[in-house]
């Protein structure tokens, strides 16, 4: 099979074409050659401006003029056609033609835009550069079996999942990016798994199922994995700055702003991870909304949006689905359902056609739901993690008003005909988040300082119920546990790290805490632990990450020199069936007992270790102090001599230092009318104290009797212990 045959789609005409394919020289009847020679020599060889168009209708002389007009009309859009040649055989055109343009760039435009042009049902143009033939012709006819690559065994790629204590891993970048470490999460303290200097040049990313760790380098990205984090694969993409994995971990998409040329678009490259092959390159105008390509949940499709167009590609061919993009005039945003191959997209108002949100099934492209929206300013799409619900946040300016109000349009994906319920919000929305695997959502709304947190439940009976609203919250972000039910409301950055731990089963605030200047919150994949951190990238002091339980109990404070980023390693989906999970939940009590005992043992081991350590340290210290004190005693005579015989070793060593002082405190004024006399009965408390302040004697001076009472209180100053009261009575209490 000739390699050239692969360029064309297999139609009958192509097969004919392939059979009649002849060596280069027959392409050049003398007339054409003369024409070419007559042209003034250009900078580029004239051959670079020639295109070959295949799948042109084969016509007889009576229709030739019409055909030429049609071809001309189509192809003169790309530039000035200087020469055209319609080869004939047996009175009919052969089905392929040659067009020469004024410049090679025009020929390229023709190839780019007319290749795939559907003239009619039977004729879809294939356009190629003439020079490409040369290229392909030079491929040897001999098929050389590619060399067999030795199998690289990286070991068990899921090794971390088999940890006997089910510890999850997380990556930490610190020392301003100089060091990257992988830790195993233990409630007592992190266990170092791997630590490398300059492992990455900027930051790291985990693949969606946790198999690979991606690091960034000037020349491209590298993937690491397995028990020892060996280098699995390397992708060369100079100046790469962003990456994205397909959900199935088969593909990785890299973006580099440096690599983009018209002939060979290399700004975005899609790679096959296992083989390391470059599958396809794409041009990219701006990386502002990364990822540019959005993947369907099963990795079968990926799509991107450009002006008025939605292009959907399929894997593994990397070609456009149905060979063409969808023309959707005005399309503003789209996203895939995380549970099914459904795309949701919205278009704004157009003259008298209202704005609408459309749900489209792939690959059939059937519109399963369309929702009209009126007076729309903006929309945002929020899918629930299983694809059970779609929330469209609609900002509208209702007719006759100036302000903007927000509605949440909730699409119930699992119900017939996808009914939509609307929740009206009176205040501006700060954050919105679905419970990952449930039917609740949380909203932060209002304006600082009056920010409110509301929790809603999407019920089966068609109602959406407001479960609870907390007002005056210090929060600007919502973080649900990946297992649902629990969440953290956080006031990050400017709100100084206020944290609220909430149980949404009964909407109670379990705990309120603070991690001053926290910049990030990350849940572990199991939903048992939360990490709050202060990244050096946003705040230059106190860089650390703190580990909390899901209930808000602080377990660890880990200070790391110039800590930058912590990312939990994702887990692959569970291998247990729904029934197996049910069984485990039933026997949970039995399992809990075993685990609790294990925890207790390790806790007591830890405290025993700590206690032993402290005991040893205290013994050493005591021994040192004893020796020092011994020397000190021996030097007493020297000290006495230096101070002329005055003993200053203790605060009360020198009795001559004792002094008595009288201090008056004014306590109280009471006016008690006694008949005609208006005596002010003041009580003065007099205190007698020694300079050594060992005893504080308080006496109450009673003005009416103009004498001192017997001593009323006597305190032993050091401990505030009340020793005796007046008249020799023992005190009953201390204060």
């Amino acid at each position, binding site marked *: 099979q000739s390699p050239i045959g692969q360029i064309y789609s297999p139609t009958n005409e192509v097969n004919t074409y392939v059979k009649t394919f002849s060596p280069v020289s027959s392409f050049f009847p003398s007339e054409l050659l003369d024409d070419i020679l007559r042209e003034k020599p250009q900078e580029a060889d004239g051959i670079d401006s020639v295109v070959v168009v295949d799948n042109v209708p084969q016509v007889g002389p009576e229709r030739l003029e019409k055909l030429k007009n049609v071809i001309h009309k189509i192809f003169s859009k790309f530039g000035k056609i200087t020469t055209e040649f319609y080869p004939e055989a047996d009175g009919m055109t052969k089905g392929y033609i040659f067009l020469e343009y004024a410049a090679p760039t025009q020929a390229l435009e023709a190839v780019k835009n007319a290749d795939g042009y559907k003239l009619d049902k039977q004729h879809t143009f294939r356009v190629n550069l003439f020079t490409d033939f040369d290229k392909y012709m030079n491929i040897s006819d001999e098929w050389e079996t590619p060399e067999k690559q030795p199998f690289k065994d990286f070991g068990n790629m899921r090794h971390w999942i088999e940890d006997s204590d089910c510890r999850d891993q997380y990556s930490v970048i610190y020392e301003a990016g100089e060091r990257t470490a992988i830790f195993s999460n233990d409630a007592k303290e992190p266990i170092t798994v791997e630590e490398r200097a300059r492992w990455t040049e900027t930051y790291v990313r985990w693949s969606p199922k946790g198999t690979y760790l991606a690091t960034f380098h000037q020349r491209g990205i590298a993937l690491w994995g397995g028990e020892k984090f060996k280098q699995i694969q390397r992708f060369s993409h100079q100046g790469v700055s962003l990456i994205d994995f397909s959900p199935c971990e088969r593909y990785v998409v890299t973006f580099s702003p440096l690599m983009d040329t018209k002939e060979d678009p290399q700004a975005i490259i899609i790679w096959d991870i296992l083989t390391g092959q470059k599958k396809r390159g794409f041009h990219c105008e701006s990386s502002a909304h990364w990822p540019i390509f959005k993947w369907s949940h099963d990795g079968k499709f990926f799509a991107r949006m450009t002006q008025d167009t939605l292009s959907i590609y399929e894997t593994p061919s990397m070609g456009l689905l149905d060979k063409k993009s969808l023309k959707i005039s005005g399309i503003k945003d789209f996203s895939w359902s995380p549970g099914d191959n459904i795309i949701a997209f919205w278009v704004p108002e157009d003259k008298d056609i209202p704005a609408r949100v459309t749900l489209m099934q792939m690959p059939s492209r059937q519109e399963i739901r369309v929702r009209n929206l009126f007076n729309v300013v903006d929309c945002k799409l929020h899918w629930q993690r299983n694809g059970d619900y779609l929330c469209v946040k609609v900002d509208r300016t209702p007719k006759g008003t100036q302000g903007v109000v927000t509605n949440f349009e909730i699409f119930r994906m699992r119900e017939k005909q996808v009914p939509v319920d609307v929740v009206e919000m009176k205040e501006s929305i700060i954050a919105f988040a679905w419970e990952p695997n449930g039917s609740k959502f949380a909203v932060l709304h209002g304006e600082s300082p009056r920010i409110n947190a509301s929790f809603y439940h999407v019920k089966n009976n068609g109602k959406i119920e407001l479960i609870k609203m907390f007002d005056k919250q210090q929060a600007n972000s919502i973080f649900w546990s990946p297992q649902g039910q629990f969440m953290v409301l956080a006031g990050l950055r400017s709100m100084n790290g206020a944290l609220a731990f909430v149980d949404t089963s009964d909407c109670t605030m379990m705990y309120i805490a603070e991690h001053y200047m926290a910049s990030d919150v990350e849940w572990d994949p199991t939903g048992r632990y939360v990490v709050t951190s202060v990244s050096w990238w946003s705040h230059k002091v106190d860089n650390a990450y703190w580990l909390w339980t899901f209930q808000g109990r602080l377990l660890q404070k880990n200070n790391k020199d110039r800590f930058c980023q912590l990312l939990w390693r994702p887990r692959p989906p569970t291998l247990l069936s729904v029934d197996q999970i049910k069984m485990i939940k039933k026997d949970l009590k039995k399992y809990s007992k075993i685990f609790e005992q294990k925890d207790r043992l390790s806790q007591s081991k830890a405290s025993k270790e700590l*206690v032993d350590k402290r005991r040893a*340290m205290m013994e050493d*210290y*005591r021994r*040192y102090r004893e020796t020092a004190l011994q020397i*000190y005693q021996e030097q007493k005579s020297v000290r006495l001599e*230096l101070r002329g015989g*005055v003993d200053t070793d203790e*605060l009360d060593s020198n009795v001559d230092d004792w002094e008595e002082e009288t201090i008056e405190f004014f306590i109280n004024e009471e006016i008690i009318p006694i008949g005609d006399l208006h005596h002010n009965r003041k009580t003065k408390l007099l205190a007698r104290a020694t300079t050594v302040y060992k005893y504080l004697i308080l006496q109450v001076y009673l003005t009416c009797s103009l004498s001192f009472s017997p001593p009323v209180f006597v305190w032993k100053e050091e401990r505030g212990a009340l020793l005796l009261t007046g008249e020799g009575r023992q005190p009953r209490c201390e204060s």
Partner: protein
Amino acid sequence: MWDTKNVLTGSADNSCRLWDCETGKQLALLHTNSAVRTCGFDFSGNIIMFSTDKQMGYQCYLNFFDLRDPQQIDDNQPYLSIPCSDYKITSAVWGPLGEFVIAGHENGEINQFSAKSGEILKKAKEHTKQINDIQTSVDLTMFISASKDNTAKLFDSTSLDHIKTFKTERPVNSAAISPIMDHVVMGGGQEAMEVTTTSTRIGKFEARFFHAAYEEEFGRVKGHFGPINCVAFHPDGKSYSSGGEDGYVRIHYFDPQYFDFELEA
């Protein structure tokens, strides 16, 4: 001075002055060529030392005057003047019997200078950054050094053996040893240029208490709203005071629980 009769002060006005404590009368004035960084009386109260900064072309010197010899004061001639060519002295205290001065330097070094000969008797290089403060224990057998390298260290005064280290995440400006408990207190802050980023935090600068034997932090006292520059225990150990960048001196008396507190051992 140990009998609270005189006070010795050193200042960036290039002078060291001796005062009568009760009357406030200046008893002696010693001019220097550069700012006086640190000063003190020896155990007997007869010898004074002070160090001058490396400034305006003048080196750092450690000067010794014997107050029993009025000639030295009148002529402004110390009987001993030790030059420090490399790293200037940032803090200094006398040894237990007046035989040597323990000096902390800009680079974290600690040296024992003989008060008789001026030679360096012992050296210690445990800190990695500038020593901000040195304070002795009440019996002068040990001292604690506070350093910009985020730690404070406990040393034996005579041998300069490094005994304990207390770690924090901020530079330590000052540290003191409790006279009656196995505790040390530390106060600090951060680089001057970073002050503005945390200045919104009112009352959040803390004095931190560590157990001297376990090297573990067991308590913090909030209140200052600027970095703490100086801490000191009361001689009877029942209170402590701290002075901060915010212009306040705070005096705290310990609760009874403070004296009963014990870490499990």
